[in-house]
Structures are given as structure tokens and as C-alpha cells.
């Protein structure tokens, strides 16, 4: 007997015959159906990558030229990697997936990659999958997209250096903290003595083979783009589009008391060894009491308690005398919606990170809110803040340079006015989406 109503493609996944469409070809090309993928959902975690992905998904939904847009985020809801795909809300899916082999970035739940994920692609029929990660998802889904739907273009936005660097994609040496400038099989094996150079050769070729499935790479910074070009991505295939930001109004300048100066500095974000908070505290500690009295640093940061005991102890012993002297305020963690109020109380925002960063969200947010920055002269930070224009650079990891700069800025009323006036408003979510759509149509990244 024949059972034919729902004839399924034979497994492993194969392209299904395309459903005939009555729409004209040109129109089909201009009406994108975009699935945005991310390694996390902002409902559960608030990293820069997932926020950028989610905001872009919402902007795609509103954009001209987009017929439909969906969001698929990896999630861990306490059941482990069941492989299950579920509906978070209309148009938004969660995938209980994980990576079990970080060396080769292989998905923990292989079965679901070729079944339920393939089903999702089959049924959504996206013209574009714009994915923001493969961490926690594994690389294999890229292949399944092309197997199921060869016409679908894959856009991959890179948010860190994970393909280049096994060390959480940070390009920082393991063990003793040292910045890393480029990867090689030998150098990487030196960072991971348990893994051979040959294994790193295999890793790189594994990633590069998967990356050939990607039609277009996007980098939020030129710095990260260059790192990937050095590593082996064709310069023609990778463009820079900055992450979109909210369209909220800039804050007015902090109201100064009579005779007050632009001497309030704020640190916002995670507190971990990469973020350079210890450099900042050492800089403050090196100041004379008179210099300390002339400025205030506020630390709005989270997750110190999650760091190593040695790091916690170091931070605590550095901050105690500074809190006592009054030049440091420890404001603690904040919710995203509180950011605006907290930034309102400072004049400058500080980003003293000692690793490369890519395009730190805090820089764009500060510019949106109308605050110039002082940042490490390193990687994506040095690119996004123009020294002497809309902010200042300090030597990364150099407390003396940070100390000199903070004292000088606190004393120079003109410096803040000049930097404040020079701020360029970051691109909005809508502009960011538009840039991507132009890219999809023309293959070029145009200014939004």
C-alpha cells in the first residue's frame, strides 16, 4: 500500500524539491525571509552577541524588503542538550543544544541537527540565515542549511576570535596573561600542551571547511575583520557593519554643582581579569591624596564573585583604601534598563580592557547616551574611540598612563566639551538592518 501524503526526503538530509512559486523572480529576490540565529536568547542571558542578534532580528521584522524574519536561539533551560526545538513566542524558537567538543566545535545533540533543525529550515524556507554564532550550537548546522536549502545564503557575524583561538576566542595566551597576535598550529599547541600541533591543524581546517559554506561574513570592527583576513577569510567576503544601537535620546551633560568639574568616571560591565579593572584601581592607588580628591571613579560591574579567589582578593585589597579615601564608588551590578540612569551620573566612561575586544557594546552605548570615553589603546577599543576627538586612549595595562590621563582630564574642562561635541551618533538598529539588506542585495557594505 502506498502512504504518500507526507512524503519525506530520505535521510540524511537532502534538498526537497522547491515549491513552485507564482511570484516573479525579481520580487522573490527583493523580499527576504531571514532566520536570525544566536548562541543565546536575551530572555536568558545578556551578552553583547545575543543582544546584537536579537535586536537585528526585530529590526529585520520592521524593515522594508523583508517578508518574514524569525529568531532561533540556543537555550539551556536546565534539561541539558535535549536537542528539542520549541516555540518561545511567535517567530522565536529555542534550541536545547550544546557543544560537547570545543576543539572542533561539535554539537552535543547530533540527532536533532539532521532532523528537527533540518525540519525547521525546510518549513521556514529562509532566503537568508543570518547567524551570530556557532558556540554552543556546533558548526554542523551550517552544512545542514545548505543541504536542505542550497539557495539559502548564510551570513555569519563574528563577535570574537573563536575560530582563530581555542582559548575561548580571546587571543590571549593561556597561563601567564599575554596578548596573542596570530595563531599557528605550533603556537596554539604551546598554549595547550595536551593537544598536538597536528590537532590544531585539523581544527583550523575543520573550521575553514565549514566557513566555505558561509556566503558573507560580517564583522562589527575593522580590527576583528583584519584578524580573520590574516587567518584566512577572503577579504572580499568579510565586511564591517557596526552593531545597531537603540534610538533613545542622548542624556544631557551631568548637572555640575557650582565650581564642579567633569571629573566623574564610570566603569560599566563585567568584572573579570580581561576587563582591566585592576589596572584602573592601581592607577587610582598611585595618585596623591590631593589628586584622589579631585576625581571620582564609579564601578558598575557584575560577577566579581564568579572570579577566582586570587583575583577577588586582589580586587578587594586594591579597592578598600580607595573606598576609604572617597575616590572610588563601588556601585555594583545593574539591569540593562538601569544603565541610562547610571551613566547619567558620570562624565566619562572608561574601558580599560587588557584584551583585544571586538566592538564593545559599552562604547556604542556611551556614545548613544552622549558620553565620551577613555579606553585602552588596543584592538577594537582603539578603533571605535578616536583619540583626542571623541575620547582618549591609554596604554593597555599601564596604570601610570591611566593615572596621568584621568588626572589631566579631571582638571581640563575644555577636554570634555570638545570630546562631547565630537561624538557621532552610532547606527540605530533599523540602520544596521538596512545596511545588511543592502549588503545582501549588492554584496557591498554601504554606510547606513
Amino acid at each position, binding site marked *: *500500500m502506498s*502512504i*504518500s*501524503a*507526507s*512524503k*519525506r526526503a530520505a*535521510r540524511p538530509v537532502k534538498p526537497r524539491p522547491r515549491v513552485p512559486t507564482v511570484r516573479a523572480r525579481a520580487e522573490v529576490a527583493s523580499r527576504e525571509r531571514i532566520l536570525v540565529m544566536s548562541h543565546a536568547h536575551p530572555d536568558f542571558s545578556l551578552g553583547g552577541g545575543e543582544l546584537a542578534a536579537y535586536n537585528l532580528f526585530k529590526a529585520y521584522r520592521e524593515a522594508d524588503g523583508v517578508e518574514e524574519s524569525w529568531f532561533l536561539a540556543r537555550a539551556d533551560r536546565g*534539561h541539558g542538550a*535535549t*536537542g*528539542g*526545538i*520549541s*516555540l*518561545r513566542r*511567535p*517567530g522565536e*524558537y529555542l534550541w*536545547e543544544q550544546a557543544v560537547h567538543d570545543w576543539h572542533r566545535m561539535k554539537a552535543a*545533540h547530533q*540527532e*536533532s541537527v539532521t*532532523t*528537527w533543525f533540518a*525540519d*525547521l529550515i525546510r*518549513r*521556514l524556507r529562509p532566503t537568508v540565515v543570518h547567524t551570530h554564532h556557532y558556540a554552543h550550537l556546533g558548526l554542523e548546522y551550517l552544512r545542514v542549511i545548505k543541504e536542505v536549502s542550497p539557495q539559502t545564503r548564510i551570513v555569519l557575524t563574528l563577535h570574537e576570535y573563536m575560530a582563530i583561538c581555542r582559548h575561548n576566542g580571546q587571543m590571549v595566551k593561556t597561563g601567564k596573561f599575554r596578548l596573542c597576535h596570530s595563531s599557528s598550529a605550533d603556537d596554539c599547541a604551546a598554549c595547550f600542551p595536551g593537544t598536538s600541533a597536528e590537532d590544531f591543524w585539523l581544527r583550523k581546517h575543520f573550521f575553514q571547511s565549514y566557513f566555505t559554506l558561509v556566503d558573507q561574513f560580517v564583522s562589527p570592527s575593522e580590527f576583528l575583520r583584519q584578524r580573520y583576513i590574516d587567518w584566512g577569510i577572503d577579504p572580499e567576503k568579510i565586511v564591517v557593519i557596526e552593531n545597531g544601537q537603540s534610538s533613545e535620546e542622548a542624556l544631557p551633560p551631568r548637572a555640575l554643582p557650582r565650581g564642579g568639574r567633569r571629573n566623574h568616571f564610570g566603569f560599566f560591565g563585567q568584572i573579570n581579569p580581561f576587563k582591566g579593572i585592576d589596572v584602573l584601581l592601581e592607577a587610582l592607588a598611585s595618585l596623591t591624596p590631593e589628586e584622589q580628591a579631585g576625581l571620582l571613579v564609579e564601578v558598575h560591574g557584575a560577577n566579581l564573585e564568579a572570579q577566582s579567589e586570587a583575583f577577588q582578593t586582589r580586587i578587594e585589597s586594591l579597592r578598600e583604601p580607595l573606598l576609604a579615601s572617597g575616590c572610588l564608588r563601588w556601585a555594583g551590578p545593574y539591569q540593562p534598563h538601569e544603565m541610562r540612569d547610571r551613566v547619567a551620573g558620570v562624565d566619562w566612561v572608561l574601558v580599560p580592557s587588557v584584551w583585544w575586544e571586538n566592538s564593545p557594546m559599552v562604547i556604542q552605548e556611551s556614545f548613544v547616551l552622549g558620553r565620551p570615553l577613555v579606553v585602552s589603546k588596543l584592538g577594537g577599543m582603539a578603533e571605535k574611540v578616536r583619540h583626542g576627538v571623541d575620547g582618549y586612549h591609554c596604554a593597555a595595562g599601564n596604570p601610570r598612563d591611566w593615572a596621568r590621563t584621568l588626572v589631566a582630564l579631571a582638571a581640563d574642562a575644555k577636554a570634555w566639551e570638545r570630546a562631547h561635541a565630537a561624538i557621532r551618533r552610532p547606527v540605530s538598529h533599523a540602520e544596521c538592518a538596512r545596511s545588511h539588506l543592502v549588503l545582501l542585495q549588492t554584496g557591498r557594505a554601504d554606510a547606513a
Partner: protein
Amino acid sequence: MLDITRQIEASAATVEEAPVIFAIGNDVLGALKVDSSRVTRTGKLVIEGWCVGDVTLSTSEAEQMLPVRLARHARPDVSQTLKVEEPEGGLGFRLETRLQDANPTAPIGLTALVRNGEETASFDFALRPERLDGEHAVQRIKPLGFIESAMVCSVTGDTIIVGWLVASTDTRVFLENESGDGFLIEEHAFRYDRRDVWDAHGGTYGNAARNAAFIARIQGVHVGERVNLVTEFSGKRQILSTAGSSLLPISPLGAARALFGVTVPLSDFHRRVEQIDRPILERLLQIQQGEWPSLEVKVRQLGSPPAAPEVSVVVPLYGRSDFVEHQLLEFVRDPWFRAHAELVYVIDDPALLEAFVPQAEALFRLYGLPFRWVWGAVNRGFSGANNLGAAHSSAPKIIFLNSDAFPRQPGWIQPLLEVLDADPTVGAIGPRLVFADGSIQHAGMEFLRREEFHIWVNHHPWRGLDTALDPAEGLSFLPAITGACLAITRDNFERIGGWDTGYLIGDFEDSDLCLKLRDQGYRIGYLPSVELTHLERQSFRLLGEGQFRTSVVLFNAFRHQSRWNHLLGTE
């Protein structure tokens, strides 16, 4: 003066027949056993065996010491039997040397130097090595073997023997019961590779140490009786290992736990199940189910059901009963249901009974919806409970419904029954089921081959997707549907003999029912316009969680495909 009671003594003068024990009085210091010694044509001497304690071995030829090469390896059998821990390197040894005379006429000397603190004593044993024809000839080795457990199934008369055997293929090795019946290993055992046995003996015995492990099924052993592993070698009979027997649980599940506790590589599981487990487990299931008709069934009818119901809705209860009230809330606001449906709950969980009986009375007083509950005296599983419910209902059509499935709107039954009425070739019909988040839980089932386990699995396609993405538009015909909500005519249900009760806990009963219908030429329908919410916990693992669960899924899958191989994979 020497205290003669403190002298180290050896229990015997030979080491080839049985272990020699070294002791001071009753304090055992160590033991030595030579399993084999052999000389090749070119004069290579290999001595193999095991020793416990601080014992140093050397060999001599015509009273001349020989330079030896000694390698140690693990001997889990010795360690287990003597209850001594393996030292680093292991209890086993292989001693290799080259003789001056390739044709020794005098015995070869094996000297054991036994140490106890400062004290030492030296013992000489004479070995008569076997002559081999070639440098690497290992064909005619003395076999080694060990019985780890023997489990007697008092119901089927089978005994399952687990162990390992290293022997060349031309050696006769058999298991023997106390009545003297012999069962050749090669005929009665499932063999598979065991890494630890290979590590210990592969180097010496080569291919004879491959597939060393065995699970054998023999007969004629009573609980407590001994089983021997016996070889006939060079005309000599030798007992390689002996073990007492214990009782295999008689409940199918208990027996399955004991049997599947003996793990084999999953890729070999299909061969082992056919040879060893299925004959026992299926018989135990039959015997257990053979008792059901004689059990007292309790039935309580609350209120009066419709006089001539069109459909019986049968819901088995297992694990929790609080879903019942949530179902009643949906049924009571459904006029068609009240007028035409007969509701039957089957209590299939002894733990639920006490609470459910008064709960049912209270629910009836509150909702006034007539229903019946049936308690079949024991847990019968999904199939058994559904069959019991069907037997205690009367309408010409039946809907089998899970207790955690809730219709999304009143009037859900009629469209399903209309399909059965309109087209007699439709054997069963099911609705779309959605998760609590509204996404697809069930839109029909299909069969996927998973060659790594040699099985067909039931797959729920489109799972987790927005219902708008369900490719089925209107009534569709599919390979199978879930048993969580399935409508069938009573005639067809009886014609195919109801739900199959030959599976162990869960899996495949629903596809089995669908395939029974398809085998008789019926089609399986799926009607997406009817939706129920199904709160099934999402379990997405191909083979379930844990080793036992995995074994059960495989067992069921093998049964499923042995029945329906001609239909699976034909879509």
C-alpha cells in the same frame, strides 16, 4: 635458633595443575600458578600464569640460570576469585627466555623466590613445557576461561551464564550442569569482544583472545546448583572455572534489569537479544499476562453514561492523577462529548488507587460528568491498560487518550469520527498535538533507520515548529500516528487483537498498532484541524536516558521490526 613454625612453606611441589600457596603457618604470603609453558622449535620458552605476593621468578635449564624477559598483565578473573587487588602491572605474568637446547629432555626449572620482610625462601618447580611446531604457533594453546555469573530462570528453565573464554577454535569447550549435560559454547553462547580480556591475553593468545566474552543460555540447572566451564584438551578433561547459580527475577522487568545489566557493545546488541534475552523475556511477559484474566477487576460507574454512546474515551492513569480534573474541565463544557461519549479511566498504577477512588467521587459531585474507572489489580502497562479499558467500554468507536492531553476546543471528537465513518479504509485517525508553548508535538510519525544500532526508530517530524509550518493541510495519510490520542472503530480494534502487550515499558506500541492496521490494508489518518495540548515531557534522546533504558528501547525496537520489517522503510 631457628623457629621452624616461622618457616615459609609451599603447599605443593607442582604449579601446573593447581595454584601453589606460600604461607607461614596460616598466614598466606602469596600464590603461584602456571597456566601454560611451551617451547617452540627454535627454543623459545614461554611460561604464562599468575602470581600473588612478593614473588620473584626465574628459570633454569639443566641447573643453569637463564636470562628472562618478564611482562605483567591484569588478570581480573584471579583478582575477583581470590579477592586480591591487582598490583601495578597486574597479577598475570608472561616469562620469555631462550633455551640452549631446543629439545630439552630434562624438565625446565621454575624458581620462585618468596619474600616476607627480611625472610626469603626459594622453591623450585619442574615444568614440562608443551612442544610447538612453529615459532608463532599458538593453535594448540591450553584454554583459559572464567564464569562470572549464572542466573537461573525458574519459569522458562533457562540459565544465563556470563563469562569469558580464551581458546583456539578447534578446542572443545562446554558448559556443564550438575546432571552432566554439556552445552558447547560455540552453539549456545553469544560471543563478544571484551577489552580487559584482550588486554590480558591478546598478546599471548592472539586471535584466540578475540570475542572472548560470552553470554550463554543453557538448560537443566536448578537454583543453587553449580555450573562448570569444561574443556577437553589433548584427551584430558579439565574444569576451567566453576560457579554457583542464583535466581533470575521472574517479573519481566526485573529479569530485564538483571539481563541487561550484562552490557555488550550496542552495535552487537541485536544479535545478543535474539539469541539470549528475547526467548526469556517474551515468555515471562506471556506468563505474567496469562494471569491477568484471573485477576479481580474493579469497576465503578459514576453517574449514568449516554444510553447508546458513539464513542468510548479510554484514558489510562499512571504516575499522577491530577490531570483527570483538567480533562473533566474540558469535557464538561463540550456538549457533543456529554451527549455521545462514554468516559473510562483505567487506573494502571497501584500507587494511585487509594487517592484516586475518593478523588473520583469528589470530582463527579463537582462536575457531574459521568465516568467510569477500572482497576485491573496490577500495573499492565500502556497496552494492557488500554486493552482493559476497551474491554470495559461499549461504544462502537474508541478513542485512546493520554491523561496529559487536553482538547483545545469543544467538539474535537466528532471530526475525528467522521473520518472513520466517511472512509472505511481509514483504520485509525489522530489529531495534531501541540506542546504547552503551542508548537507541534505530534503531526504524525515516521520511521527512521539508525544503522548504528540496526534499528528503525519512531520519529516525530516537525516537532517544536509553529503549527503554521505543519506541511499537512487537512486530512493526510501518514506512516503512523501517536497513541496519545487515537480513534479507531471497535470492530477494527478487535480484528487486530487490540494493543500488543509484548513490549517492555513504553515505546512502539502505537506504531505497532498502526502497522497492524496497515498490514491489513488500512490507512492511518492525521487530521491537523483538531488540536489537543499534550504536556508530554520532552524527551529527545534517540535511545532514552541511561544504560537500562537504552537496552529496553533496543529490545522493543528489535521486536517491532521483527514484526513489521516488510512495512518499515516502505514510505
